[in-house]
């Protein structure tokens, strides 16, 4: 029997096993556990976890099955078919993945069981004076016996109010250069020292919060990785975050292929579809979007063939001219109607909203300018930017 045939048999076994398990435990019609009438989320997630399907690629010691990612995709497929939740957390549960990959056995034992049962996390990385320059965080964590006392301010935190824990990057040593004095903690969010205030965004939304930490407490046992080794932990956590966001983007992209593009819909409605000059600009916008999709298709082929693709890092930058450009073009086609903002003028409302929302892509997760630095340095091999604060004690770094 050839290697490929052996593998095919193995994956069939996985598929059979998962289907049988779901058939025995999940009621696809009522969408809850077999024999019950209503979904008990925690109870169901416990079952999924204990069967090894929550994180199938992890080791059996930590709730996994040592499955390959191909096998894990089969688990995913079987769960999706009957619309059962709980699997794929080895790809989607950022907090759990970070603890699994970087945490000590004690930390894993203390946190993984709960994290896999629907505990919510939030990110406490960015600060008002540490945005693009994340290693410049000034939130202070000071040891006091077997716990740390945390003081500072975090920003751009989504789901802060719903979160059970925060993934916190804080400074624990001020006498070494900036990357060397950081520590990564799992901070309990529901405590008196944590105050959450929503941010009002230019889109009219409030998805982000500011988090004020005033003498908040975190056990020393909640350090992920080494004390002062937070920068390395953060790199892994950020890599997973990008992976999760990338998967989300490709799934979102896949659902709206057949829809009429908004630029065409607005052009038809406003009669600008017949304007030759406008037609050229509409075509250019559609082209930028389609070219980006073709680049991402090529990226996926390259990843399949050789494990990685430098094309992945171009998508975010390309998306900026797509989003800003489309929103601006739609506003222009709407003319005076673009001034209005009420339910009777949905195209105007959407164009105004999208014009603001486009900054989410061109600023959030690294500005376009930072992206261009990254692309020119890591892909094209051009020299790195000079950093005045890279080697001096953080205490002496200028801020403002």
């Amino acid at each position, binding site marked *: 029997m050839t290697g490929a045939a052996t593998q095919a048999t193995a994956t069939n076994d996985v598929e059979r096993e998962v289907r049988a398990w779901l058939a025995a435990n999940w009621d696809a019609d009522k969408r809850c556990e077999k024999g019950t009438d209503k979904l008990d989320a925690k109870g169901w997630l416990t079952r999924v976890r204990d069967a090894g399907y929550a994180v199938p690629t992890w080791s059996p010691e930590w709730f996994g099955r040592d499955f390959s990612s191909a096998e894990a995709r089969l688990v995913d497929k079987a769960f999706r078919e009957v619309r059962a939740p709980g699997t794929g957390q080895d790809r989607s549960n950022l907090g759990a993945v970070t603890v699994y990959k970087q945490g000590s056995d004690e930390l894993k034992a203390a946190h993984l069981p709960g994290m896999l049962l629907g505990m919510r996390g939030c990110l406490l990385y960015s600060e008002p004076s540490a945005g693009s320059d994340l290693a410049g965080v000034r939130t202070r964590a000071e040891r006091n016996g077997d716990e740390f006392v945390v003081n500072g301010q975090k920003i751009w935190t989504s789901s802060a109010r719903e979160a059970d824990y925060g993934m916190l990057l804080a400074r624990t040593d001020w006498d070494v250069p900036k990357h060397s004095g950081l520590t990564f903690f799992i901070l309990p969010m529901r405590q008196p020292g944590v105050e959450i205030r929503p941010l009002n965004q230019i889109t009219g939304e409030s998805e982000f919060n500011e988090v004020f930490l005033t003498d908040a407490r975190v056990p020393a046992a909640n350090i992920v990785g080494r004390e002062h080794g937070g920068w390395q932990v953060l790199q892994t956590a950020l890599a997973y975050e990008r992976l999760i966001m990338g998967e989300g983007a490709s799934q979102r992209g896949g659902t709206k292929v057949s829809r009429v593009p908004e630029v065409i819909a607005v052009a038809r409605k406003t009669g600008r579809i017949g304007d*030759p000059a406008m037609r*050229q600009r509409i*075509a250019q916008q*559609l082209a930028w979007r389609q*070219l980006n999709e073709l680049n991402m298709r090529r990226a996926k082929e390259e990843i399949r063939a050789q494990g990685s693709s430098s094309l992945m890092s171009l998508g975010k930058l390309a998306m900026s001219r797509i989003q800003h450009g489309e929103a601006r073009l739609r506003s222009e086609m709407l003319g005076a109607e673009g001034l209005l903002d009420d339910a009777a003028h949905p195209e105007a409302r959407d164009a105004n909203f999208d014009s603001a929302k486009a900054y989410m892509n061109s600023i959030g997760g690294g500005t376009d300018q930072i992206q261009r*630095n990254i692309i020119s340095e890591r892909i094209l091999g*051009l020299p790195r930017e000079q950093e005045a604060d890279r080697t001096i004690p953080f205490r002496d770094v200028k801020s403002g």
Partner: protein
Amino acid sequence: MSAISPEDRAAMRESFARLLASDHTEARMRATTASPAGFDRSLWGKVGEMGLLAVLVAEENGGLGAGMREMGELFEEAGKALYTAPLLESAVIATSLLALSADAEARARLLSAMAAGETIAIPALTGDSGTWDAAGVAVEAAGDLLSGHAAYVNHAASADVLLVAAREGAGVALYEVAPATDGVTLTPQPANDPSLRLSRINFEGAAARRIEGADAAVIRAALDRGRVAQAGEQAGGSRHVLDMTVAYMLGRYQFGRPIGSYQALKHMAADLLVEVESALSAARHAAAAMDDGSADAVQLVSLAGFACADAYVEVTAQAIQMHGGIAYTTEYPLHLYWRRARSLAQMLGSSGAFCEQYLGEWEKAA
């Protein structure tokens, strides 16, 4: 379905790249470009021996029976090395005109010789606009005699066979003409891009042989193949020019540091990489869609039609700026790529026209 495996395709591409590296050095390229024919006949023979001219020729006519995926990748290499010759004219457009026609006799007689590099066939399809448009054809067929003129015919002086579009009643048909025939006169049209050898051709009762089953639809399809091959050339050329520019930015020092360390230039280079990769994606997906006869083939061909042309013009134009003074001299080769980019952007239709066609496809679909 292609008769060539992906491994063979890669091997073919690699041999072509090696051949160009040894026989098409910058010095040779400059010399042959300055020669009357504008290309090197002995190198053309080697290209033929490698089978590169046979890619689009069916196996029954002595070809490889491959498709635009293979041709597109070869054109990427041609673009990098600025290799022109009548590759587009003979091996893609003329070959496709015959392959897509219903004329088995002409195919049998011409294609194997074209595939071997022995016969160069040159399409003469356009009138004074230089862009394909059935209504713009300025040659009339009366029986087997042609009168009128064609313009912007590249490499006409090197042709062993001309394939001429001519009006025939309400429609358009294709005729085979030997350039030495009485009543055929070539007048060179001097060009800005030194790799071009453009001619205006006058026909005064020139004897011709009709190619059966080659109407306006066949001509359009052959030109689409040409456009996709050109997209490969534009993508490959763009890639090479960006690589050249980055290498220069690393080696050129001003104010005590490489100019590639300045953010103003780094950011320009990052933006150009988006253009380069987008052009490559557009060219390759258009080629694949054409080979597979996908429903979105017309859309992807028109996308490649302007996206690759615009990318090549943009990348070469910015590259001159990023280099600075050295690229303003003729001894530095960058201006040759820039000229090529500018001429390719006009040769088989303008970006504006492809943009219009592209939006038209979107409107049909949505």
